[in-house]
């Protein structure tokens, strides 16, 4: 769970390093780049193993062998896999992401708008999920073992047990198609316009993602706050006669936030993958939806780029989370 404890960080340290944050950044970045390289090979190999190819997907079942062969040559699919991979990699290193095999558009123009769409989804869901999760955690920590605490605990357990697409379909049923007709069922963001111009299309996908991540953040926040509230320094603060809110916010919260940051970080990591399913359910034109289409089309340049983008986000979020947790835990910054 705590990513700090990975072998990379636990490598034997012979000499005390004066800048633990800088060291962590350098080390993690190098490992990250290596990871991305391996991921790109794995994804490429996996798409090669899938039956059929982009030419077949583009032409459909009405393709004659000649048409198929012509398109395969045109798309460069007749070359050995290693050559194809190398041409993709060298293109990438020159800043050329290649072209979609399905429709010939460049990957960058095709994906720019969709990356924005997905980013908006992740940021909104992450923001609301964090605020609601932290607030609920604090709220229930000070009402420990009260009725509301138990109720929320049971609900959150129930929600955790549900797969995200079930939650999404539940939202659709209640708020869109069958009970109320409050929000659209499909989030067809018009191409070329940013998603915030159609806020009603964002409500259900964001809500579904928030519901998925809140329980985790909330439970972590609650547990950490309770632990802090039981500590000696909080007891001391209370004995000094400080007001309850002051004790909670000034003494307990700063100590409870470090483990919660890990939970928030993990939630963002989850979101990077979770958007795939949610976007497909709501037909939301983001990178998750595009990835789903690209896999069906064997559109390797698109698959490669999206997977690498998600992997980069994953690695980046891991580093950020660790750095923030390190900053929030002063005693771990001091070399011993």
């Amino acid at each position, binding site marked *: 769970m705590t990513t700090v404890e990975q072998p990379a960080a636990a490598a034997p340290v012979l000499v005390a390093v004066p800048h633990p944050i800088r060291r962590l950044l350098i080390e993690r970045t190098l490992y990250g780049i290596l990871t991305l390289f391996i991921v790109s090979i794995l994804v490429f190999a996996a798409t090669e193993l899938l*039956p059929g190819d982009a030419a077949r997907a*583009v032409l459909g079942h009405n393709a*004659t062998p*000649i048409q198929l062969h012509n398109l395969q040559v045109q798309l460069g699919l007749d070359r050995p896999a290693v050559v194809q991979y190398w041409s993709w990699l060298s293109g990438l290193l020159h800043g050329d992401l290649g072209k979609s095999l399905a429709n010939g558009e460049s990957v960058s123009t095709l994906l720019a708008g969709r990356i924005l769409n997905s980013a908006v989804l992740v940021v909104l869901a992450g923001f609301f999920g964090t605020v609601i999760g932290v607030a609920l955690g604090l709220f229930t920590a000070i009402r420990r073992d009260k009725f509301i605490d138990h109720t929320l605990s049971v609900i959150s357990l129930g929600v955790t047990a549900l797969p995200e697409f079930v939650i999404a379909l539940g939202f659709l049923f209640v708020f869109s198609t069958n009970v109320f007709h409050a929000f659209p069922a*499909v989030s067809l963001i018009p*191409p070329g316009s940013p998603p915030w111009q159609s806020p009603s299309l964002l409500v259900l996908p964001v809500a579904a993602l928030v519901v998925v991540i809140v329980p985790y953040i909330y439970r972590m926040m609650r547990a950490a706050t309770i632990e802090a509230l039981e500590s000696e320094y909080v007891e001391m603060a209370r004995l000094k006669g400080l007001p309850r809110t002051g004790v909670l916010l000034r003494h307990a919260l700063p100590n409870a936030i470090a483990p919660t940051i890990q939970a928030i970080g993990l939630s963002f990591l989850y979101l990077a993958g979770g958007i795939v399913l949610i976007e497909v359910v709501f*037909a939301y034109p983001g990178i998750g939806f*595009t990835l789903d289409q690209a896999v069906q089309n064997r559109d390797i340049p698109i698959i490669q780029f999206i997977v690498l983008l998600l992997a980069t986000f994953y690695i980046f979020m891991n580093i950020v989370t660790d750095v923030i947790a390190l900053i929030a835990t002063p005693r771990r910054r001091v070399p011993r």
Partner: protein
Amino acid sequence: MNGATTGERLELAQAMQAEGSSGLGRRDFMRYAGAGAVLLGGASGLAACSSSTSSGTGTTGGTPKKGGTLTAGLAGGNASDTVDGQKGVNNVDFSRIIALYDALSRYDINAQIENGLAESFEPNSTATEWTIKLKSGVEFHNGKTLTADDVIFSLTRVVKGNLGGASSMANIDLASMKKLDDLTVLVPFKTPYATFPAGYTGYYYYLSILPTDYDVHNPVGTGPFKYQSFTPGQTSTFVRNPNYYGSTGGKGPYIDTLVINDLADENTQINAMLAGQADAINLLSFTSIPRVQAAGQILIGTGGGMTPFTMRVDQAPFNDVRVRQAFRLIADRKQMMNLVFGGHGTLGNDIFSPWDPDIDSSIPQREQDINQAKSLLAAAGQSGLTVELVTSDIAQGTTKVAQVFAQQAKAAGVTVNLRTVTATDFYGTQYLKWTFAQDYWYYSQYLPQIAQATLPISPFNETHWSDPTYVALYNQAIAITDPAKRRDVAHQLQAIDHTSGGYIIPYFPPTIDGLSKRVHGAQAGKVGLSFGNYSFKDMWLE
């Protein structure tokens, strides 16, 4: 996504059992039910009964109004969608192509050939040359007038580019194609081709007529709608063409704006309709009929495209005609149609192209006959045969009907092992090579379909049918310009199909589409394309 769950399989088996054990004979019951829909027990059966008949439906009536935006949410598209009038592949492509372009001819909703941009097709006496006269005064969206040059440009583009429609003009003599005057083109063929108009029409949505200065990034056609915007795999917006040549006499297009969205699956489509985000959704399964009816209208086409079982006649055990005929006798076609489509669709008789006037209606309908199937198998030394059937989610109902067939085969002592593969796998390197599999075809008339599927030189000869008599009869037929004489030869070919061919065609699957309540003017068609050949031009909004 592929294959049915165990639950579905169980349900299917129970439904089949229930049907077999009901005291009332199925055929009697059909007669009483009258509507062609049979109650099988369970909610789905009820739904089929309460819905409209399988003879085709429509939302016609009332005086058409102009204006409004119709939003369609169509399945079957993806990121490789195109608005190139000659490069369509999937259903959503065809819907867009039919909106933007016209061809020389097309199918009407009864699957009969009607002229589009052509005024007439005239063959010479040996059927080696066709003279096409164009309608006068037809305008492209950019104001350019349609001429013979555009036709020559368009046909050349298909043949030289080896595009989807090229196989319908296999023997064209491109170099000798010429313009006789502004509205007349001479199309010569290297061998007699009396069925050119039928062959062309079978592929009309691959054979749009484009202007000589065609630019795919700003696509211009003569169709009822003009291009405005398009994002592959997502959406397109077209607007009404006020100068549409076909709108004389108060005919459509009526709607101002046509938005076609790609929706990935049936659930998304129905949700979009329930939430008021889609006016027209297509390719539905019959179990969705009640859900859609609650919010809108259902449009059911009788179907004409086919989803046959394909038996390779050059491989054991199907190289023995007795095994092929036994398999055809195993199929209880009505039960298949009932279980897979709630009774909708059209019964098949192992001969394709049911709406072609050349079809011999005197050939008796093949019924299930397990005893005869058993004795044929015994005669062939194949009692207790075990075969593998390769199935895939390639079209409506294909995996389901494969399960039904496997169940039905048990009665004849035949074990059918199902091998379910993904659609991409199915159409991968093994396509056209499977020993026993399935396929799907859009509708085409009889003789052109032979050219595609059952000649040794056919591009999609999946049954590996290769019979000298058959080839000779076909070559004879396409050299005859007299339709009545040609029909006689076509009937001889159909007799061969029926007594020894490699296809089992149990039914022609229906098209089941949904429309919101405000849509009028839609009519179901027989070609197997949704909304009566994606005829958005006929629809109007309240």
